[in-house]
């Protein structure tokens, strides 16, 4: 069961990473290319009505996944895992309410929290790859450099968390951008 859940979450993380990469490429390309701008706008308009709902789904899946890992698979969360949980879990009710109310101004609250969570995830990923960044020894009480799960050679739990934080930022900004355009027009 744990293998299945891990693989499913890793596949979702791949989709998240591809979406974030596409959004970044379009954002950069649209500064130089009218065609890229048109494509980005068309995609934005298609996604915008659902962006907050999707962001809520991403946060909810991330929360459910982390709870599965700790409560069902018995992977002990380390200190940095807890910090990432602190950033991710409140986003679930906040985004649920924002999606329900279609409150696109929620980006003012969600983006800073998600960026903070993403920064912690990035440091956690670095610790996994370079354990000596923190210390030369393993804390007997569950060090953060411990890799509990690894899929496709790089998808560890903090990589999945980072993907979720990044996708949430992209989605709430997509909802916001659509909103801003309406106000400017």
């Amino acid at each position: 069961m744990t293998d299945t859940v891990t693989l499913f979450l890793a596949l979702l993380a791949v989709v998240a990473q591809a979406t974030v990469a596409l959004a970044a490429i379009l954002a950069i390309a649209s500064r130089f290319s009218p065609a890229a701008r048109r494509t980005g706008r068309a995609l934005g308009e298609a996604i915008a009505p659902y962006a907050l709902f999707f962001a809520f789904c991403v946060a909810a899946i991330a929360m459910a996944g982390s709870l599965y890992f700790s409560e069902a698979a018995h992977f002990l969360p380390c200190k940095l895992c807890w910090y990432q949980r602190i950033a991710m879990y409140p986003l679930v009710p906040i985004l649920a309410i924002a999606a329900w109310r279609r409150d696109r101004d929620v980006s003012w609250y969600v983006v800073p929290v998600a960026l903070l969570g993403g920064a912690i995830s990035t440091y956690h990923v670095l610790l996994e790859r370079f354990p000596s960044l923190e210390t030369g020894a393993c804390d007997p009480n569950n060090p953060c450099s411990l890799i509990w799960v690894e899929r496709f050679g790089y998808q560890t739990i903090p990589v999945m968390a980072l993907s979720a934080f990044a996708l949430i930022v992209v989605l709430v900004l997509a909802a916001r951008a659509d909103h801003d355009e309406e106000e400017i027009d």
Partner: protein
Amino acid sequence: MSATRTAPHKGKGRNKASNARDRKAAKRSPVLPIALGLFVLLAIVAVVVSRGGGDDGSTAGDDGASAIEQTRPVQVTGTSLADFEAGNDTAVGTTAPVLQGQTFDGASITIGKAGDPQVVFFVAHWCPHCQKEVPVISEWIADKGIPQGVSLYGVSTGVNKSAPNYPPSRWLDREDWPVRTLADDERGTAAKAYGLTGYPFFVAIDGDGEVVARASGELSVEQIEALVDAARR
């Protein structure tokens, strides 16, 4: 592009209008069915691949481990050492407790008994620093052989079936670990008795059974050789 941005809290009517427009757009948009379809498809792929015994990328929870017992009872005789603190090791000069237990294959093993200078390596299978240190020690012994006049012992401790790189016996075999190794019990009795505060952990004991040095963290070959020299003093 006529107006400037509306001030916050003043665009309620506009928001209502745009929300109504969103709802209409949402009815036409294929985004939701596509996203749902992708979600279901990925779930099916995960189930099919996992059941088909595909790539098991999980590094943890290797329940199909060998039948070898990875933890075994340990008996401690003597006073436990103080917890290790770098730079202020109060255990140096005190008598090391004697550990009696078993290796992975069930042979009895005794560590810390006076009369025999010793260096003891404590390692945990899931610890990335131990995973780096064990090949260093294995290569060092493969190159130079077991040092004269000193016995080397290992202690496999911190064993956690759910953690990565389980079971430790398989890991040490894979690394051609040449050191006789005691399998610590589930509570880490041997590690606690020697005051372990981090993995990997090293203890040098002289011929009188006294601790001459302890160290924690990854060590270089030169540092390990210094521990060996300290034990042989």
